[in-house]
C-alpha cells in the first residue's frame, strides 16, 4: 500500500521548526520518551483482532532508528505473539498503541511487504502528540496525493473533451505507484490503512482504488440485524445516543469516504485519547494522505477478522457510526476530533437495467466532502449501480441523468445533465473517461474562480441493450453550385455497426455574406461537437459552459468561415473588422487572445446516436443578384 504515504514528507516540514528536534516533550509520567527506549526492552501493544474490543500482544524492542523520517525516530520491534507470528504486521493495525514499562511509547506504524517475521516500526508518541494541538481548518484547500497523479480539472477536460492539448499520464494501479518523491517501494514502509469497502462491485472497487490510491478490502455491508458481531456500513449521519462511542487506545477506527448503502472506509487503530471529554484522538501513527488540514468523517469500526497474507495481512473491518472528523493528516499521525462533525454529501443513485423484469433500484449513500475525492467517489457509486444493472463487456447504450445541487458565491443552483453514450464493449472502463458529470464536479471543486459547495447529487442510469448508433461514413454535396444565402444540401452516408449504410439528406444555410469565401463544412455526431462558448468570468459561467452540449442523437453541421472573432468573458464578439480584431489581440503579453472562426451551425436531431465526423472544403459563389 505504497500509495498511502504520498505527500507525507511535506507534512513533516509543517511541524518541524527551530533547532529543537520535533516532538512534544510533555514530561507526562505515563509516556516513555524515545530517548529512554533501548534494544531488548519488552512491552505490549493493543489492537482489535476481532469485534470491537482491543487485545494485547507482546513486543520486544529490536533497535531505535534515529531520524528515520525528518525529525522523527522509529523504534523497531518484533512480536513473539503467535497471532503476529502467523500474520506478520497487519494493515489496519496502524496506530496500535505500544506500551513499554507500562508507559505509552508510540504507535505501531511501519511494516514491510512479504515479511517473514513480525517486525514492525513504531512512531514515537511525542511526535504524535505534537499535532494534537493543531486546530480545525475547514477552509484550507487540500490537494490529495492520489494514485492517479492527474493534475487538475484542466487536464481532465483535455482528455474528456478530446482537446488534445495536455495529455494525461497513463493510469497506474495502486501497487504501481512509486514511493515519496519517486522512490521505489520497498523496505520498511507505512502499513497503511486498508480501505474497507461494502456494497461495491469489483469494477467499482477497482476504480475507487485507482482514484484514491487505497487498497480495497471487502468488509461486508448489510444492515445489522441484531447480531452484535455483524456491523453495518455507516449511515453517514453522526451517531446519536447509544451509538455515540468514546474512543480508547487500541480501538478500531475508520475514515469514512462512502457511507450508507455503499461503503468505503480506510481503517486503522486509535493510539491516544485526550481532552476533557476524550474528544481528541490520535491514530494511524503515519499519515493517510499527508494533506495537513483535513475534514473527513471518522467512525468507530468493527473488525471481522484478520486476513493473513504473505504479502501484507489486513484487517477485514466495517465502519460503524460517524463519531467525528479527521482534522489533521500529518506525518506522525492522523488527528481526530469527536466534538467536530463534518457533513457528508448525500448521493442518490438510481439504475434501470436493460432487462425490464429487473426493476429499477435506488441506493442512498453519502460521500465525503473533499475537493479531490468527491468526484471519483460519486462516479464510483454510479459505476457500481451500472455494474449491477448489467455485466460489463456487453454492447449497450448508457443514458444518464444528473441533478447536482451546489452553491457558488452567487447562491444555490441545480445543474441538470443528460448524457447518452454508446459503449461497444462495456461501460465501466469508458464511463470515467467520458462522464461530463464527473468533469463538472471536478471543475466545481478545482477551478481558478472559487470552490463550490456540493449539497446533494441525484444520479440516474438507464442501460439499454443494442446499438442504435450510426457512423458518418461519407458526406457529399448535392448542390450543383454553392452560393451565399443558399441552402447547402449534403448527402450523408450513415453506417450502423452491422448491416448496410443508408443515406440521409441534411441542409444548412450558407451565410448570406459568405460569397467569395472558401469555407469548410464539417458534420459531426452531437456528442463530439462542443458548442461555442465565451470565456468564463466566474464559476457559474464555467459550469454553464460545461453543462452545454449537443444531444448524442443528433448531427451538428457547421460551416466554418475564414473570418475570426474574439472570445471574451463578455461574450463571443463575432465578425470583427480585421483591424479591430488585431488591436484587441495584443501581442505584448504572454496571455494570448482567444480567437474563433466565424461559423454557422445547425443541429439536426436523429433517431440514432451519431459518431464520427467528416468535412468538405467549399468555394462559395456570391449570391445571385436576381
Amino acid at each position, binding site marked *: 500500500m505504497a500509495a498511502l504515504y504520498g505527500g507525507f514528507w511535506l507534512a513533516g516540514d509543517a511541524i518541524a521548526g527551530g533547532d529543537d528536534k520535533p516532538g512534544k516533550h510533555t514530561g507526562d509520567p505515563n509516556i516513555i520518551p524515545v530517548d529512554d527506549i533501548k534494544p531488548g526492552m519488552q512491552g505490549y501493544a493493543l489492537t482489535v483482532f476481532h469485534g470491537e474490543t482491543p487485545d494485547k500482544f507482546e513486543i520486544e524492542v529490536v533497535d531505535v532508528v534515529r531520524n528515520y523520517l525528518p525529525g522523527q525516530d522509529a523504534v523497531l520491534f518484533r512480536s513473539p505473539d503467535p497471532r503476529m507470528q502467523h500474520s506478520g504486521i497487519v494493515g489496519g493495525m496502524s496506530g496500535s498503541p505500544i506500551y513499554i514499562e507500562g508507559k505509552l511509547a508510540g504507535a505501531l506504524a511501519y511494516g514491510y511487504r512479504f515479511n517473514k517475521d513480525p517486525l514492525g516500526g513504531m512512531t514515537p508518541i511525542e511526535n504524535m502528540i505534537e499535532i494534537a494541538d493543531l486546530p480545525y481548518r475547514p477552509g484550507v484547500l487540500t490537494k490529495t496525493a492520489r494514485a492517479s497523479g492527474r493534475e487538475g480539472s484542466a487536464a481532465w477536460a483535455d482528455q474528456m473533451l478530446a482537446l488534445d492539448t495536455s495529455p494525461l499520464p497513463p493510469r497506474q494501479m495502486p501497487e504501481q505507484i512509486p514511493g515519496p518523491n519517486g522512490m521505489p517501494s520497498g523496505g520498511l514502509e507505512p502499513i497503511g490503512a486498508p480501505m474497507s469497502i461494502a456494497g461495491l462491485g469489483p469494477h467499482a472497487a477497482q476504480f475507487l482504488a485507482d482514484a484514491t490510491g487505497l487498497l480495497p478490502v471487502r468488509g461486508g455491508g448489510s444492515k445489522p440485524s441484531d447480531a452484535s458481531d455483524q456491523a453495518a456500513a455507516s449511515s453517514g449521519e453522526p451517531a446519536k445516543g447509544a451509538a455515540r462511542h468514546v474512543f480508547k487506545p487500541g480501538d478500531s477506527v475508520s475514515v469514512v469516504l462512502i457511507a450508507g448503502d455503499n461503503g468505503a472506509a480506510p481503517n486503522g487503530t486509535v493510539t491516544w485519547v485526550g481532552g476533557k471529554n476524550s474528544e481528541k484522538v490520535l491514530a494511524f501513527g503515519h499519515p493517510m494522505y499527508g494533506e495537513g488540514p483535513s475534514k473527513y468523517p471518522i467512525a468507530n469500526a468493527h473488525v471481522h477478522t484478520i486476513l493473513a497474507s504473505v504479502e501484507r495481512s489486513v484487517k477485514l473491518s466495517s465502519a460503524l457510526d460517524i463519531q467525528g472528523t479527521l482534522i489533521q493528516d500529518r506525518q506522525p499521525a492522523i488527528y481526530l476530533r469527536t466534538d467536530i462533525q463534518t457533513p457528508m454529501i448525500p448521493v442518490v443513485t438510481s439504475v434501470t437495467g436493460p432487462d425490464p423484469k429487473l426493476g429499477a433500484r435506488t441506493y442512498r449513500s453519502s460521500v465525503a466532502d473533499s475537493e479531490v475525492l468527491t468526484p471519483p467517489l460519486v462516479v464510483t457509486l454510479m459505476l457500481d449501480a451500472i455494474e449491477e444493472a448489467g455485466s460489463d463487456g456487453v454492447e449497450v447504450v448508457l443514458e444518464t441523468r444528473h441533478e447536482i445541487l451546489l452553491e457558488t458565491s452567487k447562491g444555490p443552483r441545480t445543474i441538470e445533465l443528460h448524457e447518452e453514450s454508446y459503449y461497444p464493449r462495456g461501460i465501466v472502463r469508458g464511463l470515467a473517461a467520458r462522464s461530463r458529470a464527473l468533469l463538472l464536479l471536478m471543475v466545481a471543486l478545482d477551478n481558478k474562480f472559487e470552490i463550490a459547495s456540493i449539497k446533494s447529487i441525484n444520479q440516474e442510469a438507464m442501460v439499454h441493450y443494442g446499438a442504435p448508433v450510426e457512423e458518418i461514413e461519407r458526406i457529399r454535396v448535392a448542390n450543383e453550385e454553392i452560393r451565399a444565402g443558399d441552402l447547402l444540401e449534403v448527402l450523408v452516408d450513415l453506417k450502423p455497426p452491422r448491416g448496410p449504410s443508408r443515406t440521409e439528406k441534411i441542409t444548412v444555410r450558407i451565410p448570406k455574406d459568405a460569397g467569395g469565401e472558401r469555407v469548410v463544412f464539417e458534420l459531426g455526431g452531437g456528442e463530439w461537437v462542443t458548442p461555442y462558448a465565451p470565456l468564463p468570468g466566474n464559476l457559474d459561467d464555467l459550469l454553464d459552459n460545461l453543462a452545454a452540449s449537443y444531444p448524442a442523437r443528433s448531427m451538428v453541421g457547421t460551416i466554418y468561415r475564414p473570418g475570426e472573432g474574439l472570445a471574451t468573458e463578455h461574450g463571443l464578439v463575432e465578425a470583427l473588422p480585421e483591424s479591430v480584431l488585431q488591436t484587441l489581440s495584443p501581442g505584448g503579453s504572454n496571455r494570448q487572445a482567444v480567437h474563433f*472562426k466565424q461559423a454557422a451551425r445547425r443541429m439536426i436531431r436523429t433517431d440514432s446516436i451519431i459518431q464520427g465526423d467528416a468535412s468538405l472544403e467549399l468555394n462559395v459563389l456570391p449570391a445571385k443578384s436576381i
Partner: protein
Amino acid sequence: MSNWLPNSLLCVSLVLASSWAWAGGTKTHELDDFDAFDDGEVEGAAIERSGTITRGYASERAELEHSSAFSCLTDGKQAWVGTADKATIQAVDLRGGTPAAKQLVELEGVVVSAMTRLPGGDLIAAVLPGGKLVRVSKKGEVSDFAELPDVGQIWAIVPHKGKLLIGTGPKGALWSLGTDGKNAKIVLDVPEKDILSVLTIGDEILVGTSPKSRLYKVDSELEGVLLHEFQGDEVRALALSGTWLVAAVNEFEERSVSSRVALTKQLSRSSLTGEKPTDNNTTRSRANADAELWAVDLGQKRDLLRTQDAAWDKWFAKKSQYFIDLLALDDSGTVLAASSEGGKIYRARGRRDVSVVADLEERQATSMCLTDAGDVLATASDGAAVYALSQTPAKTARWVSEVLDAEHPARYGSFALRGEGKLELRVRTGPTSEVDDRWSAWKPVKLARDNDELRGAADIPRRRYMQVEVKLADADASLRSITAFYAPENLPPLIDKIEISSQSFGSDDDSEPDADIAIKWTVDARDGDSLLYDAHVRAAGGGDDEWVKLNTAGPLAKSETKLDLDTLADGIYEVRVIATDEPSNGAGSARRDELVSAPFVIDRSRPTLSNVTHAGGRVTGVAKDQGSYVHDVAFSIDGADFRAASASDGLFDSSSEKFELALPDDLGPGPHRVVVRARDARGNLETVAIKVGG
C-alpha cells in the same frame, strides 16, 4: 572581371536599408532614407519623407493600467479615453502638460469602442459587444441611454445637427439618434457589414465601410450614394483638412479556414477550463496588412461628388501595418495617421511630405484627439498609455536604429554621419537579434568633422548584431545618413563533393565516347562570399608535387571543368579542387578549402581481336582488353548495321572472350566483307575485316 563582383554590390540599388560589401571583405550598413530610419525608433524626433531626422513633437506620457487604450474624446481642455480588456473610461486632465488619467467608470463589456459628449457635459459611450449606448455623468454615474436593435458593434458616434450619428455593424447601418436617446432610425443601410468611420462635412455625411473599403454619402435613399471604392478591406478612418478629404485604407492578408481545428480546440479549452492560452514567446510578427493614405481635393465648395471622378492621390503607404485613426491637424491639408506598428504617428502634408512625428513606447497608436491648444492627445495599445503631443519641437530628440545584422560576428570600423548641427552617436553590439542582457552597454563614439561627414570609431565587442543611436544635440541638428563599416568574420568555403563523370556510351553507339569527361563539385561559401577554384589532376597516390593544374588559363569561376583524356596515359587518377573566397575578402584575408576526389580510371586503350576466321558459315575469334573487360562483340556484313555476336561461353564477363557468329543463310553468292567489332567496358572499339565467300 565581372565574376569577381559580389552579388550584393550588384543589387545594392534595389535594397532599402542596405547592407553591402566592398572589396576586401569590408561591408557597410547604409541607412539613408525614410524607410531605413522608420524601421528604427524615435523619441522626440521626426523622420521626414526626404530621409532626414529632425526634431519632432514634444510628448508627455501617462500610463494606464489596462492592456489597451482604444478611443478618445476631448472637449478641448479635458479628455476621456476608452480602454479595452476592461471597458473603462479614463478621465484625462490635460492641464499642466503631463496628462493625468483617473478612472471615471468601468462598464460591462470588452472595450469602449466609441464616445461622444452631449451638450450638457454627459458622455455617451458604446461598449463591445452589443448595440447598447450608456450615458455617463461627470461623476461617473451610468444610466441607459439607448439600445439599437440588431446592432452587434458600435464603431463611431458623431454629433451632427442636434442628433447623433452612429456607425454600426454587423448589418452595415448608420443610425440617427436624438440627444435624448430617442427616435432611433437607420439613415443609411449599406451591403457591407460595418460602418467603421463617419465624417460630416457641412450638412453632408460620409461613411467608410468594411469588409469592402467603400465610401458612401448619406442620401435621401436608404442605400446612400457610393462615392468611391478603394482596393482594400476597410476604410478605417476619414478626415477633412482644408479642401482635402483623406481616407485611411487597410488591406489584410486573407485568413485561411484551415486554422479552424486549432482555434476551435483552443476556444473549447479556454471556455471549458477558464484558462486562457499562454505563450511565453511574446514577440509577435508584424501584421499581414498594407496601409494606405488616400486623399482627394474636394475644392473650395467641398464638392463630395468629386470623390467619384476626381483623381485620388496616394499620399503614403506602409507594409506590414494598418492605420487605426486619422486626425486633421489644420485647414491646409495636414493629417496625422496612427499606425499599428511601432507606436508610430505619421504626419502627411500631401504626397511628398510625410514624416514620422511621434513614436509611442507602446506597439500601437490607436486614437487621436485635438485639444484647444492645438496639441494632440494620442492613445496607445499593447501596453496602454495616453500621450500629450505638443507641436512645439521636443527639447531632446534621438533616433535608435533597428538591430542591424552582419550575418556573422564582425569587427566594426568607423561610422560616418552626414547631417547638420551637433550630432552625438552611441553604438552597442550583441549576439542576438533582440537586445538583451548579453548585449554590450551603449558606447559613445567620438565624432570628428571629415569633409562633409562626421566620422569616428569605437572599440566595441565583435558581435553579429549592432545598433546605433543618434542624438540631435542642438535645435538645428538633423541627420541625413549614417554608414557603419564592418568586416564580418570570414568563414572558409566548404567543398562538399567532387563528381567525375565516367566514359559513357550506348550499346548502339558506333563510335567511341568523347575524350573529355566532366568534373563537377558542390561547394558552400557559407557566408555569401564569391568563390574561385583551381582544379588539379595526378596519378592516384602520387606526391604533392605531381599535381597538374587543369585550369592553366586562370582560376575557374564555375564549379566545373573538363578533363581531356587524350592528354593522360591510361591509369588510375584523382582530382583535387581548391576553392578560395579571395574575390570577397582580398588575398590577405581569403580562406580556402580543398578536396581530393575518389580515384577514377582512365582507359583509352582499345581491345584486340585475334584469330578471326571463317569456316562453315561461322566466324570465330578472340577479343581481349587490358584496361577493363570485353563489353560486346558485333559484326557488320557489307556495310550494314552492326549486329551482336555471342560469347562462346554465353557471357561477356572477362578480359578475354572467344566469340562466334553465324552468318545468315541467305547470304548471297560471291564475296562478302564481314567487319567484326569488339568494345571494352569504357567504350573503346577495335575492328577487323575479313572476306568470306566468293
